[in-house]
């Protein structure tokens, strides 16, 4: 198709020159005259105030100072128990000690829901040429509004109560990575627990609604020696926002009651994540299956506050956090993600899972389901922020989170207690 008009490159170019002297005898003279008139003259070449501000922020590493801190100090947000409100507090973090061979971190945080959290950790992340690590970790937390709806899959939404969970943990963790992607780890530590009346005016305190006989651990708490082993293999392209690959993990932990000889138990956690990309990795189907099974010692039980839980932004997103408690839990997640534009993905998901009292009930019957949609804001190949809206027969839930929905292990289809194997 012939375009309208004739495009004389040379002619129009010269005509457009605007103000060109009409008496120039040669083309060179024309250009020189035009250079004299226009050379170096351009009003839009000054830095704008916005650009200056951005440059200033860049020069002073403002973003880094905000996110990484000043002289090791920074503000940290969240990382408290879901439902405990907005959390904030100072952190002192040094990752460059002895050229990065030693990392130290300590922080305290408080939330609008009256939760408190403090931790201290010392990590040697580069042992054996970065193939091994050693990690010393201690943590204290006090959450006065932990929800409890009663035991079992048939607990009522209206049965919500609140209890205070206070504990302190002292752990030594070590691990190695013999081949890329594979990690083997061990942990050992001491755990002190305490449960008390909840402090949430909206709900009754747990001990007022549930009996101590039906709720083991409600009346008396204990301290535990805990130890465990873990093996995992990870071949995801980007663990914080995977487009393809998989993650498989098996953990085995032993919690030995030190005070009462009532609550000793073992826990087996199995997890598989698989990411199936299509359309040249512009779409992803993310799948996960995870189960946590407990094995109480003969004549002993798993205290309710250490039982597996389900519900929340990482597993059954249409249900409230910790909606279901029991001795075992099992969850399946499927999520379809597509790119809306660079940095923002949409997601449609379906979650199914259940808690169950006996391990023989590990099957696909009587699963609780929830479905929904969400958005993921990505930065540097990881989910920086996500919004999920989950629907279930109990209504809908809106979740704002700063991690990938499956992420690495921890707090997902687990209990309020999960051993820490890896330095964060």
């Amino acid at each position: 198709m012939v375009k309208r008009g004739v495009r004389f490159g040379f002619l129009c170019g010269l005509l457009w020159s605007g103000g060109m002297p009409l008496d120039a005898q040669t083309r060179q003279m024309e250009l020189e005259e035009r250079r004299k008139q226009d050379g170096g003259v351009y009003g839009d070449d000054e830095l704008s105030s916005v650009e200056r501000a951005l440059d200033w922020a860049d020069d002073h590493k403002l973003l880094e100072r905000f996110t990484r801190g000043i002289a090791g100090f920074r503000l940290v947000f969240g990382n408290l128990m879901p439902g405990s409100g907005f959390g904030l507090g100072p952190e002192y973090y040094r990752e460059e000690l002895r050229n990065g061979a030693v990392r130290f971190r300590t922080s305290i945080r408080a939330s609008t829901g009256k939760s408190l959290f403090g931790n201290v950790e010392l990590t040697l992340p580069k042992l054996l040429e970065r193939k091994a690590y050693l990690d010393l970790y201690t943590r204290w937390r006090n959450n006065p509004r932990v929800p409890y709806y009663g035991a079992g899959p048939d607990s009522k939404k209206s049965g919500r109560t609140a209890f205070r969970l206070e504990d302190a943990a002292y752990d030594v963790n070590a691990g190695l990575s013999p081949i890329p992607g594979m990690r083997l780890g061990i942990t050992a530590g001491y755990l002190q627990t305490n449960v008390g009346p909840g402090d949430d005016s909206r709900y009754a305190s747990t001990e007022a609604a549930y009996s101590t006989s039906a709720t083991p651990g409600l009346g008396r708490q204990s301290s535990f020696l805990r130890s465990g082993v873990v093996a995992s293999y990870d071949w995801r392209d980007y663990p914080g926002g995977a487009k393809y690959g998989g993650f498989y993990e098996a953990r085995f932990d032993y919690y030995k009651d030190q005070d009462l000889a009532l609550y000793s138990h073992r826990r087996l956690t199995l997890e598989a994540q698989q990411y199936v990309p299509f359309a040249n990795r512009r779409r992803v189907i993310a799948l996960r299956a995870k189960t946590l099974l407990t094995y109480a010692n003969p004549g002993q039980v798993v205290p309710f506050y250490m039982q597996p839980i389900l519900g929340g932004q990482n597993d059954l997103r249409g249900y409230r956090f910790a909606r279901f408690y029991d001795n075992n839990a099992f969850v399946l997640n499927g999520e379809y993600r597509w790119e809306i534009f660079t940095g923002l993905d949409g997601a449609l998901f379906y979650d199914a899972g259940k808690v169950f009292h006996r391990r023989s009930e590990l099957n696909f019957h009587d699963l609780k389901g929830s479905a929904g949609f969400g958005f993921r804001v990505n930065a540097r190949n990881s989910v920086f922020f996500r919004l999920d809206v989950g629907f279930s027969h109990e209504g809908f839930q809106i979740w704002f989170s700063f991690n990938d929905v499956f992420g690495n292990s921890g707090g997902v289809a687990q209990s309020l207690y999960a051993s820490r194997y890896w330095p964060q």
Partner: protein
Amino acid sequence: MSYFTGLAAAWVVLSPFLQTAAGQRFRVDDPICCEPAPLNIDNLEFRRINEFYDYYRNTFQHPGESNEHASPPIPAQNVNTLGEVLNSAWYTNRKLTHEQIVRGPNDPARAPDASGPWTVIAAKTEGVTPGLLIRDAGGRRYLLKFDPLRNPEMATGADVITAKLLYAIGYFVPENYLVHFSREQLVVGRDTKFTDQFARTSNITDRDVTELLLRVPRARRGPHEGKIRAVASLYVPGQPIGPFKYYGRRKGDRNDFIRHEHRRELRGFRVISAWVNHHDSRSINTLDTVVEEHGVRHVRHYLIDFGSTLGSAATKSKSAREGNAPLFDFRSAAANFASLGLYFRHWEIAKYSYYPSVGRIQYSAFDPERWVPNYHNRAFMNALPEDKFWAAKKIMQFSDADIREVVASGEYSDKGAENWVAECLIRRRDIIGRTYVRQAAALDNFRVADGRLTFDDLAARYGFGGQEEIRIAWARFDNESGAKSDLTSATTLQLPEPLRTAAAGTYWATTIKREGDERSVTIYIRKSAAGYEIAGVERMW
């Protein structure tokens, strides 16, 4: 319509008459080869471009003079009457032999001297891929750039290959040398400082360098087994004054008198970027330096940093999006959102052969008209068919052998990877040729020989057709008024009798069309005392 818009419109309408009335269409020195010799410039301060602001401005504000609503469109302004780009500090018409193309800008005498240690004089430690500034035994400075751990050879190969191709086309680029070295080759210079990600300045230590190189792949086999591979990019000559923009002019540079968005080599760079998949062709990957030549200080304009070309995105393999969709486009985003991702674009379902050392590049879904960089710039957006034709001609000049040997100089250890890169460049070149060369009647390089007008039929040469008959119409051309008087009896390429017997100083025009094609090309011939000269060429699209 604002006052200024009205004034501009009036100027567009009136200027042809002013020009025609004022004088000749062709000047005695047409076609010229070069922009005027540079003038000495005062000191220009270093000017940086903030990449986030650049993205925002080019994505949402579209600065510069636009062709979108201009009628007639604004043609490139730094071309001669043949449509060729004038030699300047931006671009040089280079006629290179096969050997020169393969060598590129490099000179073995300027390759890093490994006879002595390389002294680290600065480091870039933040980011995914580190970089080191070194001084070799000969005192020359190089920037060492590395590959990402997962993609050995990818970014370095792309950097070397693309620099050679762009140099052969005519751009100014750095000399990029592939080097393989061991840790012991590097020593840390005394009091060498670097600024970490916390804006703290401290001395670099040997341990810092060792740690940094742990993030870099090493050759697993072959003659360089165990060695670190890098591109040593020789510092370009002159005093750096920051990147150039793809619009406007640099304030204070007396030689910068043509708006960048109207420079053909920048408009045409869109097509060239499409060819080598340079999705990161933005301002921060350019550099202006003040050089001194023959006692005159002036600015030279470089394209730099080609680690994000071919299948490479420098720190990782390209995603399928890169080169096919911008970072943000409102309509695409709306379509993606509304369709729940069920609207698939052609590049999303295209098949890619994947080599870790190449990344993601292919040709079967390549369409240069739909190719886009990460974000648009005004020069690319202003590209007209003649700009694209010019770029396509430049690309088509590379033979298969040229391309294969340039790619071989990227030293891929996997022969399959090397073949794939060469195959992609060859096929993409041909697609570009079919797309743009055919738009322009595909005739070029006009000259008069033995009393006949002759030319190169690019369509026939490159196998895009060219079998159609051509129709020829001659006319006498009045260089003062622009009027043509047809010579109805002259319908062959033989110079017509009136032309052969005409006096020196007269102008003649012949219009050539292919049978069944309305596109034409008109060649203006000036008769001089010395013979016949091609004074100009105009193409109808």
